[in-house]
């Protein structure tokens, strides 16, 4: 049963946990990120919807998260973890969900976060882009388009 998996996540991984109808939000330590993913996959979370990140500039941290879905139980879980903003690195989930490699590639390009074990980390959307990682909070687009009008 899915709720029990969430119980496990909460206890074994000391995850913080909130719930809103079918969506559950779990926060875990970086060390538990991969194991939490594995546990979910083994418990019917067949689909990975996305891997993404949030730049918490003021706290000098990135939040890396993934969203998965269990079709049998109709439960979505978002698992997130915090990592430092300097040399951000985290394990790739591509050995668990095949499609995560492509999502991680996007996060790598837009935020500059490296996913260990992901062999796909090459530019995805941008071609010959030399500027900062575009989704970083300290890259001000409005200033940039004024300075370098294209």
């Amino acid at each position, binding site marked *: 049963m899915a709720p029990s998996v969430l119980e496990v996540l909460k206890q074994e991984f000391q995850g913080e946990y909130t719930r809103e109808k079918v969506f559950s939000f779990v926060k875990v330590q970086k060390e538990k990120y991969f194991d939490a993913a594995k546990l979910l996959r083994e418990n019917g979370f067949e689909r990975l919807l996305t891997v993404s990140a*949030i730049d918490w500039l003021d706290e000098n941290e990135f939040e890396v998260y993934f969203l998965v879905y269990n079709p049998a139980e109709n439960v979505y879980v978002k698992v997130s973890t915090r990592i430092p903003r300097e040399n951000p690195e985290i394990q790739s989930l591509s050995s668990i969900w095949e499609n995560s490699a492509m999502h991680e590639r996007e996060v790598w390009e837009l935020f500059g976060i490296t996913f260990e074990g992901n062999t796909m980390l090459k530019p995805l959307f941008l071609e010959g882009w030399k500027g900062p990682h575009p989704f970083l909070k300290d890259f001000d687009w409005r200033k940039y388009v004024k300075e370098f009008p294209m």
Partner: protein
Amino acid sequence: MSFYAEFRMLSEKAMTFNFPPEMPLTEVFRGRHVLDMEKCVGCGLCEKICPNLAITMVERGEADEKRSYPQVDYGKCCFCGLCEDICPREALKLSHFPFIVVLGRDALVYPPEKLAEPPKLEHPVPPKIKGITNWAISRSFWVNFFFTGCCFIEAAPWVGSGFDMERFGMLAKGSPRHSDVLLIGGYVTVKTLRRILRIYEQMPCPKYVITLGCCPVNGGTYWDSYNTINNLEKYMPVDIMIAGCPPRPEPIGLAVVLAMNAVQSGYMGKEEKVNKEEGFLEVPSVEESREEGEYSIPFGPQHPASGNFDVYFKLEGEHVKSARPNPGYLHRGFEKLMEYRTWWQNIMLVQRVCVLDGASYELSYIGAVEKLAGVEVSRRVKYLRTIQAELCRIQSHLLNLGLIGGATGFDTMVRIAWGDRERILLLLEKLTGGRIYHIYNIPGGVRRDLPSNFKDDFKKEMKYMLKQLDLYDNLCFNNPVFNGRTKELGVLPGDMAVRLDVTGPNARASGVRFDVRKASPYETYDELEFNVVTSEGSDAYSRVLCRRKEIEESLYIVENALEKIPGGKLFERNAKGGLRLSPFSPLPKGETIHCVESARGELCFHLVSNGKNTPYRAKIRGPTFDSILVAMPKVLEDEHVAEIPVIYWSLDNCPADHDR
């Protein structure tokens, strides 16, 4: 094709609209502004709300009686109507006049005096025929469509029977070397610009360039994206600009007539000139490693069947060995653009993520915002949203049927399906005021009520559409040639679909019974009866058939919704904790996810608020990212090269969605 179908087509009235039109089709369409200078008090609220900085307040009058009035730049305006909504004096209004066609970007700036004049279409007067050559050229343009952005969606009707470009002697051409006119369909990124310049150089002289929409001229809605080309003229000449976001098909027709007249009077196009910024804008050459006997071919981004997206194929003989998608031509960075706009202003941005099915993006965003704000909208609003979403699904599926027709070389289907799509767009326009980008939803409600005669209009169209679906069956689904071109092609097994996160009709056609509308009903789907269409075929045929059946289901959903729709408030201002929703109000701290079933599959918005009036982070999980970038290469493996377009469109891509 059965004899019956053929007979019906010959005996019925032509689908093509008359041209030039006196006026667009409905009164509610959002077109050019009209300013009442008497009423305007110069408060500047319109300038403040405009998400695109299209409005600037300018001063008028003598020294001590100076007053300011809005001036609108149509190189930026996206016709969202937020300025109209906020104007306290009803001084600034949107008329339904769509014709803004100019020869230079300066003419797009409308000062208050010009805005005050009632809009009027001046029909171009054809010049005297001077030379037979010029006349002949002007009557036989070969047009290279480069569907760079969303505006292509309004150029597409010109291929369908509604507008029918061929009556002007125009022919759509894939090859630049055989084209006279380059039609740039909207938004341009750096990556796209490289390809545009290459295409432009390959065209023979005289060559003419027409741009659609605000984006190529002035960046449009995406003016503050790091990836936007804000002024195409810096890099190459442009002859005619059609403003709009996207422009309607009618102004495109006007531009065509203007171009024909100019060429007939001897206009030879602007001088050829290309600025590649010292090689920075050269198309990079791709070094693909190849083994003996293999060769690689690119598909897109300007292939007639690709959309603005490309894939490198490695072939062995005539079969696909591997496929490597190369997305990003439409990457605007929507998620970060949203961080610069207020929760309210973002209502005009979100549907642009996928031009093919904007309504679902509105619903997904608005649903998430309303969860964050803690506002409960009336049931009438929910019904209206359901109706909007389903009509939008129908037109999206019809577009796909046309594309499949194109990919299978079955031109009749393109023309009929896209001609029928016009009728659904008309319904959407009557309901929302927009054909493509409805901008119908606001946090707490919708912007207008159901028009009085909408139920009857819908009934008429439903009757017609059901008849047409029969025709589609006769033309396509029971047609052995169409069967031969789509069956057992591009097989996507059900377990693979789940594993690779493919959803929507693509997964349902592989037997995966998942539909967000049933699994976690939103709006009023729990009160409406409908079937989840599935099939076990797993091939291109089943995917297309699945969409055809969903059109039928959607028609019944709308019919049912129109019967059941209760009364109720259109806008609920009061949210949780005494919060009153307004265009500038902040939302409480928190995060939320809201998923809906879009025409292409599951679509979720993840919104994070840190208590400000703009999102801290918005993440859009669109349906095509996995179905195209991850699953498609696998589906295409070992297929014959000639089947690529069919399989590709059977997966129903929207490049704008995965690039965001």
